């Protein structure tokens, strides 16, 4: 009951947001929706399949550039956004190949390398991408209507984000979803039950990259101007921070993490006015804060904001009695 009420209230607030929020805040909310789409993809790979990627900014970039280039060639948005997703998914399947042999830190390095290669391609393929000079991206045109207003674009982002979360939830309930979590929790036994781990890891990489590519298409329109350095390693780390802080292995954690990722820089802007000038003007405060939160999350709340939320909620229900921590998700550690 309370759950339904909460969901209805949240839906009403999200739908009414353009009436309630100033244009700037609405733009931030669009950003959150876009990060939710990318986060749903990354969560599938990292949180549910137990693979790691330090190259997801590159998939976002592939999606963004595909969208920008396709739109400039006159393709309608549904087609160009689908192309963004498909092209990124194709890249994801390729990047997934090393995942069949590499694990943990080695896979992280391989995906990191892909990230560097992608940025290099964006910068060097000048005829297509405009190189380091970047590309301007016009607003979305949907069925002949130009989404020039902030609220119009917000509704598009909201719709895609809701779609991505539904897709994630459905996938996790399907046999494919069960195979992915089985590979995460116990790969060898999963294979001994007949699950083709190589096939499902590739599928996970492709789906994850595809969702991130679609997010990239929206991202290109949101920021209005794309250049190679927008998709560097820092963005990959931010995306990873997002799902870790949100809570690995929880769909709700995607939303919490995306909100966190947008809220922190905003809070930092406000906090700067209160800090002593010497600290406030220091560069690198944002990455430092992300790093700090990441460390604190891993140390004290491995289930992230979602875990915190679940505990606070059940504490409120039980009238103060704090339940124990749920079993934390941990990549099983065992020797081969």
């Amino acid at each position, binding site marked *: 009951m309370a759950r339904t009420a909460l969901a209805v209230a949240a839906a009403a607030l999200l739908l009414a947001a353009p009436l309630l929020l100033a244009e700037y805040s609405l733009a931030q909310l669009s950003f959150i929706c876009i990060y939710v789409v990318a986060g749903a993809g990354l969560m599938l790979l990292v949180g549910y399949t137990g693979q790691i990627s330090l190259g997801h900014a590159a998939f976002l970039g592939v999606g963004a550039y595909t969208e920008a280039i396709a739109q400039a060639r006159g393709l309608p948005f549904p087609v160009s956004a689908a192309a963004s997703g498909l092209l990124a998914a194709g890249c994801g399947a390729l990047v997934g190949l090393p995942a069949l042999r590499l694990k943990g830190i080695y896979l992280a390095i391989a995906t990191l390398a892909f990230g560097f290669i992608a940025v290099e391609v964006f910068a060097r393929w000048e005829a297509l991408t405009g190189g380091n000079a970047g590309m301007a991206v016009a607003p979305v045109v949907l069925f002949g209507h130009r989404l020039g207003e902030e609220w119009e674009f917000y509704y598009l982002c909201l719709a895609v984000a809701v779609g991505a979360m539904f897709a994630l939830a459905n996938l996790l309930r399907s046999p494919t979803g*069960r*195979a992915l*979590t*089985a590979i995460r*929790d*116990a790969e*060898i*036994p*999963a*294979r*001994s*039950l*007949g*699950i*083709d*781990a190589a096939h499902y890891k590739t599928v996970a990489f492709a789906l994850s990259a595809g969702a991130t590519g679609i997010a990239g298409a929206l991202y290109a329109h949101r920021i209005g101007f794309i250049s190679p350095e927008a998709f560097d390693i820092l963005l990959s780390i931010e995306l990873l921070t997002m799902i870790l802080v949100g809570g690995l*292995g929880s769909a709700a954690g995607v939303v919490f993490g995306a909100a966190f990722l947008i809220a922190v820089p905003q809070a930092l802007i406000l906090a700067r006015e209160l800090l002593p000038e010497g600290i406030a003007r220091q560069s690198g405060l944002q990455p430092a804060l992300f790093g700090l939160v990441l460390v604190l999350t891993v140390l004290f709340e491995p289930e992230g904001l979602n875990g915190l939320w679940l505990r606070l909620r059940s504490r409120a229900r039980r009238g103060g009695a704090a339940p124990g921590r749920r*079993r934390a*998700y941990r990549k099983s550690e065992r020797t081969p």
Partner: protein
Amino acid sequence: MAEAILSVAGLEVRYGALAALSAVGLELPEGAILAVLGANGAGKTTLLRALAGVLVPARGTVVFRGRSIAGLPPERIVRAGISHVPEGRELFPLLSVRENLLMGAWIRRDAAGIERDLARLCSEFPVLGERARQPAGRLSGGEQQMLAIARALMARPRLLLMDEPSLGLAPRLARELFRMIDRRRREDGLTVLVVEQNARLALGIADLACVLAGGRVVAQGPARSLLGEEFIRGFRLGDNPAGRTQAPEP
């Protein structure tokens, strides 16, 4: 007894320079239970893993139901009809008991048959039925062991490989488990290869036994013939029975 369902010859498994198994040969007739005994480090688990496809043998042949399966990956081996209950259970702790069992039936597509087997296992292990909706990670150690074996049976294997199924089980549970395995053999013609530390328990239901030491088969024969008190006491105390090539006469 029936014709061999599994024949292993000249099997060698290496961990780098170290040969964990060498020149292992086995013949397992259909419907038989073979107990693999031996001290720690004798190669028992390695043998099971090699048969299950988790380890790739360096040399040797493994023929199962007339088909060579040496070097196949685990997901192909289970489709050939061999299920592996690994050491230490290796359940999916966050999935429910029922979901774990359904994962065991991954290779099957007969929904009705899966439900029937599910019902049968829940009647054999009532606790699994009672806790069907609980996460597997919440079960006690013994219950998890039951679930691991039940999950392997959900694939409807012709040959079941079990690694130390009695480890951590109360003696009464361990006996119950072995009785269930024996019933599967009589009713379904299941063939079983079981690695056990508890030799007396294993030899109680096994037809055949083989003793591994230092990665080699040092004794092989009917289980009854290996039930000699002195012999079992010998390796349970950790003495290496290497050099004994003939099973002692009862």
